[in-house]
Protein backbone atom coordinates (compact mmCIF):
# COMPACT_ATOMS: atom_id res chain seq x y z
CA UNK A 1 0.00 0.00 0.00
CA UNK A 2 2.87 2.35 0.84
CA UNK A 3 4.29 1.61 -2.57
CA UNK A 4 1.10 2.57 -4.38
CA UNK A 5 1.09 6.00 -2.73
CA UNK A 6 4.78 6.45 -3.37
CA UNK A 7 6.18 6.15 0.15
CA UNK A 8 8.93 3.88 1.41
CA UNK A 9 7.90 3.44 5.04
CA UNK A 10 5.07 4.25 7.48
CA UNK A 11 7.08 6.98 9.19
CA UNK A 12 6.80 8.98 5.95
CA UNK A 13 3.07 9.39 6.57
CA UNK A 14 3.90 11.64 9.52
CA UNK A 15 6.46 13.77 7.68
CA UNK A 16 4.44 16.95 8.14
CA UNK A 17 4.65 16.73 11.96
CA UNK A 18 7.81 18.47 13.29
CA UNK A 19 10.26 15.90 14.66
CA UNK A 20 10.67 17.80 17.92
CA UNK A 21 7.05 17.11 18.87
CA UNK A 22 7.05 13.50 17.79
CA UNK A 23 7.29 10.96 20.62
CA UNK A 24 10.23 9.13 19.11
CA UNK A 25 9.77 5.91 21.03
CA UNK A 26 7.29 3.11 21.45
CA UNK A 27 4.32 3.58 23.80
CA UNK A 28 4.95 2.21 27.27
CA UNK A 29 2.13 -0.27 27.53
CA UNK A 30 2.13 -3.94 28.51
CA UNK A 31 2.47 -6.79 26.12
CA UNK A 32 -0.79 -8.04 24.61
CA UNK A 33 -3.14 -9.68 27.08
CA UNK A 34 -5.74 -12.39 26.59
CA UNK A 35 -9.36 -11.21 26.61
CA UNK A 36 -9.92 -12.68 30.09
CA UNK A 37 -6.84 -10.83 31.39
CA UNK A 38 -8.04 -7.56 29.91
CA UNK A 39 -11.44 -7.96 31.54
CA UNK A 40 -9.80 -8.75 34.88
CA UNK A 41 -7.57 -5.69 34.61
CA UNK A 42 -10.52 -3.42 33.80
CA UNK A 43 -12.61 -4.85 36.63
CA UNK A 44 -9.77 -4.22 39.07
CA UNK A 45 -9.54 -0.59 37.91
CA UNK A 46 -13.31 -0.11 38.12
CA UNK A 47 -13.37 -1.53 41.64
CA UNK A 48 -11.27 1.43 42.79
CA UNK A 49 -14.25 3.71 42.10
CA UNK A 50 -15.76 3.06 45.53
CA UNK A 51 -18.23 5.91 45.29
CA UNK A 52 -19.99 3.99 42.56
CA UNK A 53 -20.30 0.85 44.68
CA UNK A 54 -20.88 2.10 48.21
CA UNK A 55 -24.18 3.74 49.20
CA UNK A 56 -23.54 7.37 48.39
CA UNK A 57 -25.13 10.68 49.34
CA UNK A 58 -23.16 12.57 46.70
CA UNK A 59 -24.95 14.98 44.38
CA UNK A 60 -23.69 18.42 43.44
CA UNK A 61 -24.51 18.30 39.75
CA UNK A 62 -24.30 14.55 39.05
CA UNK A 63 -27.03 12.38 40.52
CA UNK A 64 -27.65 8.72 41.25
CA UNK A 65 -31.08 7.85 39.87
CA UNK A 66 -32.55 4.58 38.73
CA UNK A 67 -32.52 4.05 34.97
CA UNK A 68 -35.14 1.57 33.73
CA UNK A 69 -33.48 -1.27 31.78
CA UNK A 70 -35.52 -0.37 28.71
CA UNK A 71 -33.30 2.69 28.23
CA UNK A 72 -30.05 0.76 27.88
CA UNK A 73 -31.76 -1.95 25.87
CA UNK A 74 -33.25 0.39 23.25
CA UNK A 75 -30.27 2.66 22.74
CA UNK A 76 -28.15 -0.37 21.85
CA UNK A 77 -30.27 -1.08 18.79
CA UNK A 78 -27.82 -0.61 15.94
CA UNK A 79 -30.09 1.87 14.17
CA UNK A 80 -29.69 4.18 17.15
CA UNK A 81 -26.24 3.25 18.35
CA UNK A 82 -24.42 3.68 15.04
CA UNK A 83 -26.41 6.37 13.30
CA UNK A 84 -24.71 9.64 12.64
CA UNK A 85 -25.74 13.26 12.20
CA UNK A 86 -29.14 13.68 10.53
CA UNK A 87 -27.99 16.15 7.90
CA UNK A 88 -29.82 14.21 5.18
CA UNK A 89 -33.41 14.22 6.39
CA UNK A 90 -34.54 11.82 3.70
CA UNK A 91 -32.65 8.98 5.39
CA UNK A 92 -32.73 10.19 8.99
CA UNK A 93 -36.40 10.46 9.87
CA UNK A 94 -36.05 8.10 12.85
CA UNK A 95 -33.25 10.16 14.40
CA UNK A 96 -35.02 13.43 13.66
CA UNK A 97 -38.24 12.16 15.16
CA UNK A 98 -36.66 11.30 18.49
CA UNK A 99 -34.83 14.63 18.53
CA UNK A 100 -38.17 16.36 17.98
CA UNK A 101 -39.70 14.33 20.81
CA UNK A 102 -36.76 15.21 23.07
CA UNK A 103 -37.18 18.92 22.33
CA UNK A 104 -40.93 18.71 22.95
CA UNK A 105 -40.51 16.95 26.29
CA UNK A 106 -37.90 19.48 27.45
CA UNK A 107 -40.29 22.30 26.54
CA UNK A 108 -43.06 20.67 28.53
CA UNK A 109 -40.88 20.14 31.59
CA UNK A 110 -39.22 23.57 31.55
CA UNK A 111 -42.35 25.46 30.54
CA UNK A 112 -40.60 27.08 27.58
CA UNK A 113 -41.62 27.45 23.94
CA UNK A 114 -38.64 26.00 22.09
CA UNK A 115 -35.74 23.73 23.01
CA UNK A 116 -32.72 22.69 20.99
CA UNK A 117 -31.50 19.17 20.24
CA UNK A 118 -29.17 19.32 23.28
CA UNK A 119 -25.76 20.73 24.18
CA UNK A 120 -22.67 18.98 25.55
CA UNK A 121 -23.64 19.35 29.18
CA UNK A 122 -25.23 21.70 31.69
CA UNK A 123 -22.13 23.82 32.25
CA UNK A 124 -21.50 24.62 28.59
CA UNK A 125 -25.22 25.19 28.07
CA UNK A 126 -25.01 27.85 30.78
CA UNK A 127 -21.98 29.44 29.11
CA UNK A 128 -23.89 29.60 25.84
CA UNK A 129 -26.79 31.26 27.66
CA UNK A 130 -24.43 34.06 28.77
CA UNK A 131 -23.43 34.62 25.14
CA UNK A 132 -27.01 34.48 23.91
CA UNK A 133 -28.13 37.03 26.49
CA UNK A 134 -25.36 39.35 25.34
CA UNK A 135 -26.53 39.06 21.73
CA UNK A 136 -30.22 39.55 22.52
CA UNK A 137 -29.82 42.53 24.86
CA UNK A 138 -26.68 43.99 23.27
CA UNK A 139 -25.32 44.37 26.80
CA UNK A 140 -22.29 42.72 28.36
CA UNK A 141 -22.81 42.43 32.10
CA UNK A 142 -23.77 38.99 33.37
CA UNK A 143 -24.92 38.87 37.00
CA UNK A 144 -24.56 35.32 38.30
CA UNK A 145 -25.36 33.99 41.76
CA UNK A 146 -22.60 32.48 43.93
CA UNK A 147 -25.01 29.66 44.60
CA UNK A 148 -24.81 28.49 41.00
CA UNK A 149 -22.63 25.36 40.73
CA UNK A 150 -18.99 26.54 41.09
CA UNK A 151 -17.78 24.34 38.25
CA UNK A 152 -20.48 25.70 35.94
CA UNK A 153 -19.33 29.22 36.73
CA UNK A 154 -15.74 28.19 36.07
CA UNK A 155 -16.65 26.74 32.66
CA UNK A 156 -18.67 29.83 31.75
CA UNK A 157 -15.71 32.01 32.71
CA UNK A 158 -13.46 29.98 30.40
CA UNK A 159 -15.96 30.25 27.54
CA UNK A 160 -16.38 34.00 27.82
CA UNK A 161 -12.92 35.15 28.89
CA UNK A 162 -11.83 36.47 25.49
CA UNK A 163 -15.09 38.20 24.68
CA UNK A 164 -16.82 41.30 25.99
CA UNK A 165 -18.68 39.68 28.88
CA UNK A 166 -18.27 41.25 32.31
CA UNK A 167 -19.21 38.64 34.91
CA UNK A 168 -20.37 39.92 38.27
CA UNK A 169 -21.21 37.61 41.14
CA UNK A 170 -24.05 38.03 43.55
CA UNK A 171 -24.04 36.50 47.02
CA UNK A 172 -26.64 34.41 48.80
CA UNK A 173 -28.34 35.00 52.12
CA UNK A 174 -26.54 33.13 54.93
CA UNK A 175 -29.76 32.16 56.64
CA UNK A 176 -31.99 31.16 53.77
CA UNK A 177 -29.37 30.06 51.22
CA UNK A 178 -31.20 31.97 48.51
CA UNK A 179 -30.05 34.83 46.27
CA UNK A 180 -30.50 38.04 48.20
CA UNK A 181 -28.74 41.22 47.16
CA UNK A 182 -29.77 42.27 43.64
CA UNK A 183 -28.32 45.78 43.74
CA UNK A 184 -25.92 44.81 40.93
CA UNK A 185 -28.75 44.73 38.40
CA UNK A 186 -28.78 47.79 36.17
CA UNK A 187 -29.43 48.87 32.60
CA UNK A 188 -26.08 47.37 31.54
CA UNK A 189 -27.11 43.88 32.69
CA UNK A 190 -27.63 41.33 29.94
CA UNK A 191 -28.79 38.56 32.23
CA UNK A 192 -29.41 37.47 35.80
CA UNK A 193 -28.33 33.84 36.12
CA UNK A 194 -29.51 31.68 39.01
CA UNK A 195 -29.72 27.95 39.68
CA UNK A 196 -32.77 26.34 41.24
CA UNK A 197 -32.59 24.16 43.23
CA UNK A 198 -29.23 25.87 43.77
CA UNK A 199 -25.88 24.28 44.57
CA UNK A 200 -26.87 24.09 48.24
CA UNK A 201 -30.18 22.44 47.36
CA UNK A 202 -32.23 25.55 48.09
CA UNK A 203 -35.21 26.34 45.92
CA UNK A 204 -35.01 29.96 44.75
CA UNK A 205 -37.94 32.38 44.54
CA UNK A 206 -37.83 32.42 40.75
CA UNK A 207 -40.79 34.73 40.21
CA UNK A 208 -39.30 37.47 42.36
CA UNK A 209 -35.92 37.13 40.65
CA UNK A 210 -37.55 37.21 37.19
CA UNK A 211 -39.31 40.45 38.12
CA UNK A 212 -36.04 42.04 39.23
CA UNK A 213 -34.25 41.03 36.04
CA UNK A 214 -37.04 42.22 33.76
CA UNK A 215 -37.32 45.51 35.59
CA UNK A 216 -33.88 46.45 34.22
CA UNK A 217 -34.45 44.88 30.81
CA UNK A 218 -32.19 41.93 31.47
CA UNK A 219 -32.93 38.33 30.55
CA UNK A 220 -33.66 35.85 33.34
CA UNK A 221 -31.62 32.65 32.97
CA UNK A 222 -32.46 29.66 35.14
CA UNK A 223 -30.03 26.75 35.51
CA UNK A 224 -31.33 23.31 36.48
CA UNK A 225 -28.69 20.75 37.42
CA UNK A 226 -31.12 18.19 38.88
CA UNK A 227 -33.60 17.51 36.08
CA UNK A 228 -35.77 15.28 38.26
CA UNK A 229 -36.76 18.42 40.19
CA UNK A 230 -38.78 19.43 37.14
CA UNK A 231 -41.14 16.61 38.08
CA UNK A 232 -42.22 18.41 41.22
CA UNK A 233 -41.37 22.10 41.15
CA UNK A 234 -43.13 24.88 39.25
CA UNK A 235 -41.46 25.12 35.85
CA UNK A 236 -38.92 27.91 35.30
CA UNK A 237 -40.94 29.02 32.27
CA UNK A 238 -44.03 29.54 34.38
CA UNK A 239 -41.93 31.66 36.74
CA UNK A 240 -40.73 34.02 34.01
CA UNK A 241 -37.50 32.51 32.72
CA UNK A 242 -36.30 33.73 29.31
CA UNK A 243 -33.71 30.98 28.95
CA UNK A 244 -33.59 27.67 30.81
CA UNK A 245 -30.40 25.62 30.70
CA UNK A 246 -29.54 22.49 32.55
CA UNK A 247 -28.23 19.00 32.79
CA UNK A 248 -30.23 16.00 31.65
CA UNK A 249 -28.04 13.36 33.31
CA UNK A 250 -30.72 12.59 35.89
CA UNK A 251 -32.94 11.27 33.11
CA UNK A 252 -31.61 7.74 32.99
CA UNK A 253 -27.98 8.57 32.20
CA UNK A 254 -25.23 6.85 34.24
CA UNK A 255 -23.03 9.09 36.39
CA UNK A 256 -19.98 7.70 34.50
CA UNK A 257 -17.37 9.59 36.49
CA UNK A 258 -18.66 12.90 35.11
CA UNK A 259 -19.75 12.23 31.54
CA UNK A 260 -20.84 12.03 28.80
CA UNK A 261 -23.96 13.80 29.95
CA UNK A 262 -26.41 16.02 28.08
CA UNK A 263 -27.02 19.76 28.14
CA UNK A 264 -30.53 21.19 28.00
CA UNK A 265 -31.27 24.54 26.38
CA UNK A 266 -34.72 26.08 26.06
CA UNK A 267 -36.00 29.57 25.39
CA UNK A 268 -39.00 31.57 24.18
CA UNK A 269 -40.04 31.65 20.51
CA UNK A 270 -39.14 35.32 20.14
CA UNK A 271 -35.48 34.53 20.88
CA UNK A 272 -35.21 31.39 18.75
CA UNK A 273 -32.96 32.91 16.11
CA UNK A 274 -30.39 33.75 18.78
CA UNK A 275 -30.46 30.27 20.27
CA UNK A 276 -27.35 28.14 19.76
CA UNK A 277 -27.30 24.50 18.81
CA UNK A 278 -29.05 22.16 16.51
CA UNK A 279 -32.79 22.51 16.09
CA UNK A 280 -35.24 20.00 14.65
CA UNK A 281 -38.52 21.11 13.14
CA UNK A 282 -41.55 19.67 11.42
CA UNK A 283 -41.90 20.08 7.66
CA UNK A 284 -44.14 18.67 4.93
CA UNK A 285 -43.13 16.96 1.73
CA UNK A 286 -44.68 17.74 -1.66
CA UNK A 287 -47.47 15.23 -1.00
CA UNK A 288 -48.36 16.84 2.30
CA UNK A 289 -46.83 14.09 4.46
CA UNK A 290 -45.27 15.22 7.74
CA UNK A 291 -41.55 14.81 8.22
CA UNK A 292 -38.72 16.24 10.30
CA UNK A 293 -35.72 18.37 9.33
CA UNK A 294 -32.94 20.30 10.97
CA UNK A 295 -34.01 23.91 10.65
CA UNK A 296 -33.04 27.55 11.17
CA UNK A 297 -29.58 26.44 10.13
CA UNK A 298 -28.30 29.95 9.46
CA UNK A 299 -27.70 30.16 13.22
CA UNK A 300 -24.99 27.54 12.86
CA UNK A 301 -21.35 28.12 12.10
CA UNK A 302 -21.05 25.77 9.15
CA UNK A 303 -23.67 27.86 7.35
CA UNK A 304 -22.70 31.40 8.39
CA UNK A 305 -19.42 31.57 10.26
CA UNK A 306 -19.18 35.10 11.70
CA UNK A 307 -22.93 35.44 12.22
CA UNK A 308 -23.35 32.07 13.94
CA UNK A 309 -24.82 31.89 17.44
CA UNK A 310 -22.17 29.39 18.53
CA UNK A 311 -19.44 27.14 17.17
CA UNK A 312 -21.39 24.07 18.22
CA UNK A 313 -22.54 21.96 15.28
CA UNK A 314 -23.51 18.82 17.09
CA UNK A 315 -25.64 17.49 19.91
CA UNK A 316 -25.42 14.62 22.40
CA UNK A 317 -27.49 12.40 20.11
CA UNK A 318 -27.30 9.03 21.86
CA UNK A 319 -27.51 10.52 25.35
CA UNK A 320 -30.46 12.71 24.37
CA UNK A 321 -32.13 9.58 23.00
CA UNK A 322 -31.55 7.77 26.29
CA UNK A 323 -33.06 10.72 28.16
CA UNK A 324 -36.04 10.72 25.78
CA UNK A 325 -36.68 7.02 26.33
CA UNK A 326 -36.40 7.61 30.09
CA UNK A 327 -38.91 10.48 30.04
CA UNK A 328 -41.33 8.52 27.87
CA UNK A 329 -40.99 5.32 29.92
CA UNK A 330 -41.51 7.20 33.19
CA UNK A 331 -44.28 9.39 31.88
CA UNK A 332 -45.71 12.40 33.64
CA UNK A 333 -46.87 10.41 36.66
CA UNK A 334 -43.69 8.38 36.97
CA UNK A 335 -41.53 11.47 36.94
CA UNK A 336 -43.72 13.09 39.56
CA UNK A 337 -43.57 9.99 41.74
CA UNK A 338 -39.79 9.77 41.55
CA UNK A 339 -39.50 13.47 42.36
CA UNK A 340 -41.77 13.06 45.39
CA UNK A 341 -39.71 10.14 46.69
CA UNK A 342 -36.57 12.26 46.39
CA UNK A 343 -38.16 15.12 48.31
CA UNK A 344 -39.58 12.91 51.04
CA UNK A 345 -36.41 10.92 51.60
CA UNK A 346 -34.34 14.11 51.70
CA UNK A 347 -36.74 15.56 54.27
CA UNK A 348 -36.49 12.40 56.40
CA UNK A 349 -32.69 12.48 56.21
CA UNK A 350 -32.51 16.18 57.09
CA UNK A 351 -34.71 15.74 60.15
CA UNK A 352 -32.81 12.72 61.44
CA UNK A 353 -29.45 14.44 60.95
CA UNK A 354 -30.76 17.57 62.69
CA UNK A 355 -31.50 15.41 65.72
CA UNK A 356 -27.87 14.36 66.06
CA UNK A 357 -26.05 16.39 68.70
CA UNK A 358 -23.88 19.06 67.12
CA UNK A 359 -25.27 18.70 63.58
CA UNK A 360 -27.71 21.10 61.96
CA UNK A 361 -29.16 22.04 58.58
CA UNK A 362 -27.59 25.30 57.52
CA UNK A 363 -30.15 26.94 55.24
CA UNK A 364 -33.82 27.54 55.90
CA UNK A 365 -35.12 27.73 52.30
CA UNK A 366 -37.22 24.81 51.04
CA UNK A 367 -35.21 22.05 49.45
CA UNK A 368 -35.76 19.39 46.81
CA UNK A 369 -33.29 16.52 47.31
CA UNK A 370 -30.13 18.25 48.56
CA UNK A 371 -29.27 20.18 51.70
CA UNK A 372 -26.23 21.46 53.57
CA UNK A 373 -25.33 20.11 57.01
CA UNK A 374 -22.97 21.81 59.44
CA UNK A 375 -20.87 19.45 61.56
CA UNK A 376 -19.21 20.28 64.89
CA UNK A 377 -15.82 19.50 63.34
CA UNK A 378 -14.29 19.60 59.83
CA UNK A 379 -16.67 17.95 57.36
CA UNK A 380 -13.87 16.06 55.61
CA UNK A 381 -13.10 14.24 58.89
CA UNK A 382 -16.75 13.44 59.56
CA UNK A 383 -17.26 12.04 56.07
CA UNK A 384 -14.05 9.99 56.24
CA UNK A 385 -15.30 8.47 59.50
CA UNK A 386 -18.63 7.52 57.90
CA UNK A 387 -16.82 6.00 54.96
CA UNK A 388 -14.50 3.87 57.12
CA UNK A 389 -16.91 2.92 59.92
CA UNK A 390 -20.17 2.55 58.02
CA UNK A 391 -19.07 2.06 54.42
CA UNK A 392 -21.16 5.06 53.37
CA UNK A 393 -20.23 8.16 51.37
CA UNK A 394 -22.05 10.72 53.49
CA UNK A 395 -21.91 13.70 51.18
CA UNK A 396 -19.60 16.33 49.70
CA UNK A 397 -17.38 18.48 51.89
CA UNK A 398 -17.95 22.05 50.70
CA UNK A 399 -14.54 23.42 51.68
CA UNK A 400 -13.22 22.52 48.24
CA UNK A 401 -15.46 25.17 46.65
CA UNK A 402 -16.22 27.42 49.61
CA UNK A 403 -13.07 27.54 51.78
CA UNK A 404 -14.92 29.61 54.39
CA UNK A 405 -17.21 26.63 55.10
CA UNK A 406 -14.85 23.95 56.52
CA UNK A 407 -17.51 22.18 58.59
CA UNK A 408 -20.27 22.11 55.95
CA UNK A 409 -21.14 19.22 53.70
CA UNK A 410 -23.77 18.75 51.00
CA UNK A 411 -26.08 15.76 51.31
CA UNK A 412 -28.12 14.46 48.37
CA UNK A 413 -30.87 11.89 48.83
CA UNK A 414 -32.42 10.28 45.78
CA UNK A 415 -34.98 7.53 45.34
CA UNK A 416 -32.07 5.04 45.17
CA UNK A 417 -31.27 5.50 48.88
CA UNK A 418 -33.10 3.23 51.28
CA UNK A 419 -34.23 4.23 54.77
CA UNK A 420 -31.60 1.88 56.21
CA UNK A 421 -28.84 3.77 54.37
CA UNK A 422 -30.05 7.05 55.80
CA UNK A 423 -30.29 5.55 59.29
CA UNK A 424 -26.79 4.09 58.91
CA UNK A 425 -25.43 7.49 57.91
CA UNK A 426 -27.09 9.12 60.90
CA UNK A 427 -25.63 6.51 63.26
CA UNK A 428 -22.15 7.06 61.83
CA UNK A 429 -22.37 10.76 62.66
CA UNK A 430 -22.97 10.15 66.34
Amino acid at each position, binding site marked *: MLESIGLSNAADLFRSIPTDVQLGRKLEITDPLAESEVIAAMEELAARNTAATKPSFLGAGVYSHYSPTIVDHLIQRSEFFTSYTPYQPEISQGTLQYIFEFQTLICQLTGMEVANASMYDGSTAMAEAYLMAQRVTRRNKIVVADSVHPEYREVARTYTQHGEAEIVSVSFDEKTGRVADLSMLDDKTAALVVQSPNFFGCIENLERLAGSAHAVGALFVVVVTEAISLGLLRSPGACGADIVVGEGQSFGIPMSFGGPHVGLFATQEKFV*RQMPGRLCGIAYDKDGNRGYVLTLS*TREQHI*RREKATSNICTNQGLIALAATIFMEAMGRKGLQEVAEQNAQKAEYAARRIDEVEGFESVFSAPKFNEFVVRAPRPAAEVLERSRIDAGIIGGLALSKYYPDRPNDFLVCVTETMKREHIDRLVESLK
Partner: protein
Amino acid sequence: MANIPENLRYSKDHEWILVDGDVASIGITDYAQHSLGDVVYIDLPRAGDKFGTHEAFGSVESVKAVSEIFTPVSGEVVEVNEGLNDTPEKVNSDPYGEAWFIKLKMDNPGEADAMLSWAEYEEYLSSQG
Protein backbone atom coordinates in the same frame (compact mmCIF):
# COMPACT_ATOMS: atom_id res chain seq x y z
CA MET B 1 -37.33 41.85 -17.55
CA ALA B 2 -37.00 43.17 -13.97
CA ASN B 3 -39.11 46.06 -12.78
CA ILE B 4 -37.02 49.24 -12.21
CA PRO B 5 -39.03 52.27 -11.00
CA GLU B 6 -37.72 55.49 -12.44
CA ASN B 7 -38.03 57.60 -9.30
CA LEU B 8 -35.55 55.53 -7.28
CA ARG B 9 -31.78 55.26 -7.24
CA TYR B 10 -29.87 51.97 -7.21
CA SER B 11 -26.67 50.28 -6.06
CA LYS B 12 -24.71 47.53 -7.75
CA ASP B 13 -25.62 45.35 -4.73
CA HIS B 14 -29.24 45.56 -5.89
CA GLU B 15 -30.54 47.89 -3.21
CA TRP B 16 -32.87 50.76 -4.05
CA ILE B 17 -33.14 54.08 -2.24
CA LEU B 18 -36.02 56.58 -2.05
CA VAL B 19 -34.93 59.99 -0.85
CA ASP B 20 -37.26 62.28 1.10
CA GLY B 21 -35.36 65.28 2.43
CA ASP B 22 -32.48 63.82 4.38
CA VAL B 23 -34.21 60.50 5.07
CA ALA B 24 -33.66 57.56 2.74
CA SER B 25 -35.86 54.46 2.56
CA ILE B 26 -33.91 51.37 1.53
CA GLY B 27 -34.94 47.98 0.15
CA ILE B 28 -33.87 45.39 -2.41
CA THR B 29 -34.78 45.40 -6.09
CA ASP B 30 -37.08 43.19 -8.06
CA TYR B 31 -34.01 41.58 -9.65
CA ALA B 32 -32.65 40.72 -6.18
CA GLN B 33 -35.88 39.18 -4.87
CA HIS B 34 -36.19 37.13 -8.01
CA SER B 35 -32.64 35.79 -7.64
CA LEU B 36 -33.15 34.93 -3.99
CA GLY B 37 -36.37 33.02 -4.34
CA ASP B 38 -39.03 32.84 -1.61
CA VAL B 39 -37.94 35.05 1.28
CA VAL B 40 -38.55 33.57 4.74
CA TYR B 41 -36.82 35.97 7.11
CA ILE B 42 -35.21 39.42 7.17
CA ASP B 43 -32.64 40.20 9.85
CA LEU B 44 -32.91 43.95 10.50
CA PRO B 45 -30.93 46.38 12.70
CA ARG B 46 -32.43 48.59 15.39
CA ALA B 47 -33.34 52.26 15.36
CA GLY B 48 -30.28 54.20 16.48
CA ASP B 49 -27.76 51.91 14.76
CA LYS B 50 -25.26 53.81 12.63
CA PHE B 51 -23.67 52.66 9.39
CA GLY B 52 -21.10 53.94 6.92
CA THR B 53 -21.41 53.54 3.15
CA HIS B 54 -21.50 49.96 1.95
CA GLU B 55 -21.79 48.43 5.39
CA ALA B 56 -23.82 45.27 6.02
CA PHE B 57 -26.89 46.33 7.98
CA GLY B 58 -28.77 43.05 7.91
CA SER B 59 -29.53 40.00 5.84
CA VAL B 60 -32.27 38.45 3.76
CA GLU B 61 -32.86 34.73 4.12
CA SER B 62 -34.62 32.79 1.40
CA VAL B 63 -35.23 29.08 1.05
CA LYS B 64 -31.95 28.70 -0.81
CA ALA B 65 -29.57 31.37 0.50
CA VAL B 66 -28.79 34.08 3.00
CA SER B 67 -27.60 37.37 1.56
CA GLU B 68 -26.23 40.36 3.37
CA ILE B 69 -27.74 43.75 2.58
CA PHE B 70 -25.59 46.85 2.45
CA THR B 71 -26.20 50.54 3.12
CA PRO B 72 -25.67 52.42 -0.12
CA VAL B 73 -25.24 55.64 1.89
CA SER B 74 -24.06 56.40 5.42
CA GLY B 75 -26.42 57.40 8.20
CA GLU B 76 -28.40 56.49 11.31
CA VAL B 77 -31.36 54.17 11.29
CA VAL B 78 -34.48 56.11 12.30
CA GLU B 79 -37.11 53.55 11.45
CA VAL B 80 -37.22 49.80 10.92
CA ASN B 81 -40.00 47.94 9.12
CA GLU B 82 -40.83 45.80 12.18
CA GLY B 83 -43.87 44.07 10.74
CA LEU B 84 -42.02 42.80 7.68
CA ASN B 85 -41.15 39.49 9.33
CA ASP B 86 -44.83 38.71 9.83
CA THR B 87 -45.15 38.70 6.03
CA PRO B 88 -41.65 38.15 4.59
CA GLU B 89 -43.19 37.15 1.25
CA LYS B 90 -43.83 40.87 0.69
CA VAL B 91 -40.17 41.17 -0.27
CA ASN B 92 -41.03 39.04 -3.29
CA SER B 93 -44.45 40.54 -4.08
CA ASP B 94 -43.85 44.24 -3.33
CA PRO B 95 -40.08 44.91 -3.11
CA TYR B 96 -40.37 48.65 -3.78
CA GLY B 97 -43.45 49.36 -1.65
CA GLU B 98 -44.39 47.57 1.53
CA ALA B 99 -41.10 45.69 1.72
CA TRP B 100 -38.86 48.67 2.56
CA PHE B 101 -36.33 47.53 5.19
CA ILE B 102 -35.10 50.65 6.98
CA LYS B 103 -35.27 54.40 6.91
CA LEU B 104 -31.91 56.06 7.30
CA LYS B 105 -31.20 59.68 8.24
CA MET B 106 -28.35 60.36 5.86
CA ASP B 107 -25.05 61.80 7.09
CA ASN B 108 -24.42 63.18 3.63
CA PRO B 109 -27.40 63.43 1.25
CA GLY B 110 -24.94 63.97 -1.61
CA GLU B 111 -24.06 60.27 -1.44
CA ALA B 112 -27.48 59.41 -2.87
CA ASP B 113 -26.70 61.39 -6.01
CA ALA B 114 -23.67 59.19 -6.63
CA MET B 115 -25.89 56.12 -6.92
CA LEU B 116 -27.11 54.65 -10.21
CA SER B 117 -30.17 56.05 -11.95
CA TRP B 118 -32.79 53.61 -13.14
CA ALA B 119 -31.30 53.66 -16.64
CA GLU B 120 -27.78 53.02 -15.34
CA TYR B 121 -29.06 50.16 -13.18
CA GLU B 122 -30.93 48.66 -16.12
CA GLU B 123 -27.74 48.81 -18.17
CA TYR B 124 -25.82 47.25 -15.30
CA LEU B 125 -28.31 44.34 -15.16
CA SER B 126 -28.01 43.79 -18.91
CA SER B 127 -24.24 43.68 -18.69
CA GLN B 128 -24.46 41.02 -15.99
CA GLY B 129 -25.82 38.62 -18.59
